[in-house]
């Protein structure tokens, strides 16, 4: 019934300006009072595309989130497991075929995915100004306002704020390496005990090495030039070639995904794993994925801090439902639940200063981290996320220089 109610609204949403590929400007269909929008979303089906490589996240989304949305708005939340590149290529193919409406309402994205989707005008917006729960977010925070150095401009809504962390086995590694030189020496002293994955997390690790090798933490905050990339990447490839013989499997192959790296770590094949989420170590130990001896830290050379976001495809069939879901996901209740170590341990995007007293207390009472330094401590070593282009060149270069150059 709800979908039927939303029908006229959606057909207006598919007006000529959207077909022309110009996604600038909030769709007029969404410029209605929030209660009316919720009414349109009531009882509808919302499809979210998300990375499905973490059972805890999947369980939380399919369990708590789906149940809450069902109770609050009678919204039926459906899931599509799509990783960043798959999502981009899918929405690109849909744009090429002129498919409107499509079949995804909400997409979980960040960085290079956001960059590519903006490039092909596959995102709808700006929409964040429509969300009532935007009031809790500090939109001036550079780690929120910019996604991989690109202003979000209301085309995606922050959902979680995290910092990359290295995880080590405290029984096997008593003194985790702090500097790059120490890390290099450790790898050489312990052949086959270190590696990284070739997906998002591993590439984020390489970005921090890239920044360290370039000697300038702001090196990639500026527009990327060929000369800058050539010089910086050459140093990175040299470093990898220098250590590769002592990496896991002699650096000829790497885990496909961070979940595989976790498996190698818990299976005792390597002594380090990593996470894009600074709070994940507790969560993974509680789940039994990582052993009790796992500890998280940020080396002295720092680690990338960024946010992840929720966007709405330009051809979303149910934009009203999408907005209702996104608004719920940035609500204090959902953010609090998500931040609990036993649930996900994901950093909240809500600003404590903006929260009301009651919520502030609840957030403050989230059990502290047992196996990683506090968030504040880690943030002292936070590195800004380089531009999205760096990630794409890194993925491309890593494949050409390291994987194919084996």
């Amino acid at each position, binding site marked *: 019934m709800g979908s039927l109610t939303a029908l006229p609204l959606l057909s207006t949403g598919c007006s000529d300006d959207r077909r022309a590929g110009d996604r600038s400007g909030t769709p007029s269909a969404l410029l209605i009072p929030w209660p009316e929008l919720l009414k349109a979303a009531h009882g509808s089906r919302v499809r979210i595309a998300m990375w*499905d490589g973490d059972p805890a996240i*999947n369980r939380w989304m399919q369990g708590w989130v789906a149940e809450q949305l069902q109770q609050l708005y009678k919204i039926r939340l*459906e899931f599509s497991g799509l990783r960043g590149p798959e999502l981009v290529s899918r929405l690109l*193919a*849909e744009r090429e075929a*002129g*498919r409107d409406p499509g079949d995804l309402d909400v997409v979980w994205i960040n960085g290079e995915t956001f960059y590519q989707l903006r490039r092909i005008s596959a995102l709808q917006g700006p929409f964040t100004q429509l969300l009532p729960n935007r009031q809790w977010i500090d939109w001036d925070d550079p780690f929120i306002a910019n996604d991989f150095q690109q202003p979000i401009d209301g085309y995606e809504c922050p959902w979680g704020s995290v910092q990359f962390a290295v995880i080590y086995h405290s029984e096997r590694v008593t003194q985790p390496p702090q500097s790059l030189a120490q890390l290099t020496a450790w790898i050489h002293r312990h052949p086959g005990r270190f590696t990284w994955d070739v997906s998002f997390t591993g590439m984020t690790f390489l970005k921090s090495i890239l920044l360290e090798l370039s000697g300038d933490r702001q090196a990639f905050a500026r527009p990327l030039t060929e000369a800058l990339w050539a010089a910086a990447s050459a140093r990175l490839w040299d470093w990898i070639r220098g250590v590769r013989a002592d990496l896991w499997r002699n650096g000829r192959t790497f885990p496909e995904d961070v979940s595989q790296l976790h498996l190698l770590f818990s299976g005792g094949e390597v002594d380090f794993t990593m996470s894009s989420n600074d709070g994940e170590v507790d969560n993974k130990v509680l789940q039994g994925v990582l052993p009790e001896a796992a500890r998280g830290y940020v080396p002295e050379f720092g680690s990338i801090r960024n946010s992840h976001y929720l966007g709405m495809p330009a051809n979303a069939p149910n934009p009203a439902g999408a907005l209702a879901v996104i608004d719920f996901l940035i609500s204090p209740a959902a953010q609090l639940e998500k931040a609990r170590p036993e649930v996900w341990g994901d950093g909240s995007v809500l600003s404590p200063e903006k929260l009301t007293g009651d919520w502030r207390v609840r957030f403050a009472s989230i059990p502290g981290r047992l196996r990683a330094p506090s968030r504040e401590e880690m943030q002292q070593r936070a590195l800004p996320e380089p531009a999205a282009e760096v990630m794409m060149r890194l993925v491309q270069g890593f494949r050409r220089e390291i994987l194919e150059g084996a």
Partner: protein
Amino acid sequence: MVNSSAAGQQSPRRYRVAALLLVMLVPHLLLLLLSTGTGWSYPRLVPDRLDGGPWQQLFRFSGLLQAATTGGVLSVAAGALSTLFGLLISRAVRGTRGALRRLMRALLLLPFVISPVVAGVCVFDLAARTGLAGSFIGVLCGHILFGTATAAVVLSEAASDRADRLELLVRSLGGSTIAVWRHAVLPQTRGLLGVCLMQTTLISWLDYGIVLQIGGGRVQTLTLRLFSLIRESSVNHAALAALLLLLPSLVAAFLLILTGPRSDG
């Protein structure tokens, strides 16, 4: 070594079948073992906790049951339609000769051999333009493409002069098309139709490439869930998904073993 009739007579036949069956079932038993617990840390041979976790969650969050239902409906529909279409196509192209016949054979063999995932990559645009991408019907169409080709190839084996003459006889005696199908076509092809239906149903049930590319994660089948669980490194849940995926073929094979003729006689 050469004589087929004498060499194996002495050893009890049923033990041979049972022994081979046991060997073939080792992977299934391993999956069953892994699916009965939680965790599987090295060097344990059995899961860390034999708590039946994945089986308990089967009815809750894992979505396996729903995926099995979607996959089941999809494969039965794809199997039935592919078999019907394959029969009609095999009968239509039966009379072709020379280069046209060769072209037909090539056309029917092509989907038989190409990778579904490559086909999915190349046909996604068509699916998106026709509104079939990300839909149950879209995935069904993809499966029918592969199933129909298989069915047409298999059912072309039913062609025989005797079958043709029987059909002509029914027709010349005044039988309508329905009568021809009822009294000649279906009785002649019944055995092959069964094989075909089973084969095309299984093709759909076991497919991952088309479901991934055309379904785009929206049409959740067991193969899709299994891959997702493998990516999660959820060994126990993945084992359960794999076991559910193997169940229909296991039942079909057992039925064949139990009910089929023992030997050529």
